[in-house]
């Protein structure tokens, strides 16, 4: 079953009367349980594609269907709610809420979803355990290493029970040990719980782990390899 269906996707930036094609006719489908890396040089359109898949930006033309909903037709407030219920985000700079503990950061998104407190707490604890942060639940982000913070971000992304997780260069700020550790955790979650991960990355280690590698150049998919 396809989680994401993208047809003839275009994103054009009008920069002082010169049209810049950030994405130029992208067709793509991603199935549930895939572990996909999107690669390509800077300016190839990776970030634009990720923003569009994540509902953070609107395409100029084309369709993006997520779980059967065409998100290119949603208003900005509908999109916020859609993101909350369907998409998990992991950012390059972790972007945790600094005043909250690891536990509260994970719980927060379920609070936004108005889930009952009991469920929030059980799920938070099991997710933190899954990312190997048992015993660090009450630490604030500034007391955690980069790798640990990114694992909290992964737990947060999963907390909302999303259809897929978008990770924008998740390992860019991590050393090799933390990268390996994070990738192992995500791979495990993917394998055991069938969670769909989509990365944009420059990192060869991530590319090596990915089971599908989509390469972009000048706003077009130039290769799509399944391992």
């Amino acid at each position, binding site marked *: 079953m396809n989680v994401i269906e993208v047809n003839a996707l275009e994103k054009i930036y009008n920069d002082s009367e010169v049209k810049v094609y950030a994405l130029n006719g992208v067709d793509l489908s991603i199935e549930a349980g895939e572990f996909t890396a999107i690669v390509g040089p800077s300016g190839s359109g990776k970030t634009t594609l990720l*923003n569009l898949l*994540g509902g*953070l*930006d609107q395409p100029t033309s084309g369709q993006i269907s997520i779980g059967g909903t065409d998100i290119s037709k949603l208003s900005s*407030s509908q999109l*916020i*709610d859609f*993101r*909350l*219920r369907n*998409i998990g*985000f992991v*950012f390059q*700079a972790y*972007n945790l*809420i*600094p*005043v*909250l503990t690891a536990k*509260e950061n994970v*719980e*927060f*998104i379920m*609070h*936004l*979803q108005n889930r009952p407190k009991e469920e929030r707490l059980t799920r938070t604890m099991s997710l933190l355990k899954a990312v190997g942060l048992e015993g660090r639940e009450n630490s604030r982000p500034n007391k955690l290493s980069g790798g640990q913070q990114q694992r909290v971000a992964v737990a*947060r992304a999963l907390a*909302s029970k999303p259809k897929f997780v978008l990770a924008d260069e998740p390992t860019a700020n991590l050393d090799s040990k933390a990268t390996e550790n994070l990738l192992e955790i995500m791979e495990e979650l993917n394998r055991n719980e069938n969670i769909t991960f989509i990365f944009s990355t420059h990192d060869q280690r991530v590319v090596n782990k990915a089971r599908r590698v989509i390469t972009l150049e000048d706003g077009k998919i130039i290769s799509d390899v399944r391992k």
Partner: protein
Amino acid sequence: MITSIAWKNIWRNRMRSVIIITAITIGMFAGVFTSTFYKGWINQRLEAGVETEVSHIQIHHPDFSENFELKNFIPDGAITSDEIARMDFVNGVSPRMVVQAMVASSETGTGIKILGINPEKEKTVTNLYSKVPEGKYFEGVKRNPILIGEKLAKKLKVKLHSKLVITLQDSQGHLTSEAFRICGIYKVGNGMFEEMNVFVMKSDLARFVQLDESISHEIVVHLKEHGQLTPNSEMLSGKYKNQLVQSWKQMAPELGLLNEYGSIYIYFFIIIILLSLGFGIVNTMLMAVMERVKEIGMLMAIGMSKFRVFWMLMLETVLLTLTGGFFGILLGIGVTFATMKSGINLSFYAEGLEDMGYSSLVFPVVELEMVCVIVLLVLMTGLIASVYPARKALKYKPAEAIRIDM
């Protein structure tokens, strides 16, 4: 959870928040204490004006107040006075004889108004009897006792039991003089009143001006319920159509003005303080929000609605404002309570103040209604101050905000 995040956000930049909270605390302390002080002052002035000087209602012959002529007395004054005394809303009645005269001591002389009273009846309409620190209220002097104000005593350079000579034109038109002896010196904190008004026994004055003791120029009425001032005054006015019936608000309009607009001045003052604090709050929140654009972008990216982000930032501003407001108001009330028993002595300025009728010893008062309104005003300041920074934060698209390098 959002409230707890908002509260924690306030303490991210501890120094900045402490500075603005301190500013709000000082501003609100100044506002609250000035208000309780001013309110106390107004209340004292009102209390002195109404309970000591004017009482609630006065009745005169319509022409009397123009030139204080002896012949302009209230016809059937004694009957009228007894009639009013029997009315069920009346607490007390004092019929007075009023004459303008010259008073002279061995040193100097001045013009005054003599009020001939029955000391016991007078006790039911004013509290003058309780404001006699020197001597006694019509006791201790057998013949022609006179009660004069402290300010007049100073002016005439006389003391308790000194002799004064009063000269006036009697009802027959003859200039006549008589000696009186000071039985007491009253002090009401209103220099003008103290300097102008002396009190003697009505029987002494009647004999002096050759009028019957039953004649009155002024009937002073004290009501059981001050709240019924206007209806009771209108009722008397309707009943005694040929006389001039006036409530204290009509007789002393400046007191009525103080009563009605005193609170408005206070609120106006506090609004000005809050307005200037509001700009400081906006500035602080703007800094706090602008350095968090990336985080706010992230919150919207993961699915926090604009309304919730707005709500969080508004709560932050309101909590910041209320914290400062809380300490300021508490401090203001605390200092008020600490000084409300002993009073605050302004004797350095006292002479000028007392000349205008204001006491130099001020007892601040806390009024619940005033505190509630101030709390509401603080809350409103927080709400209004939150709008601009919050709107500014929501202007960014999440995709752009996340990638801003801070």
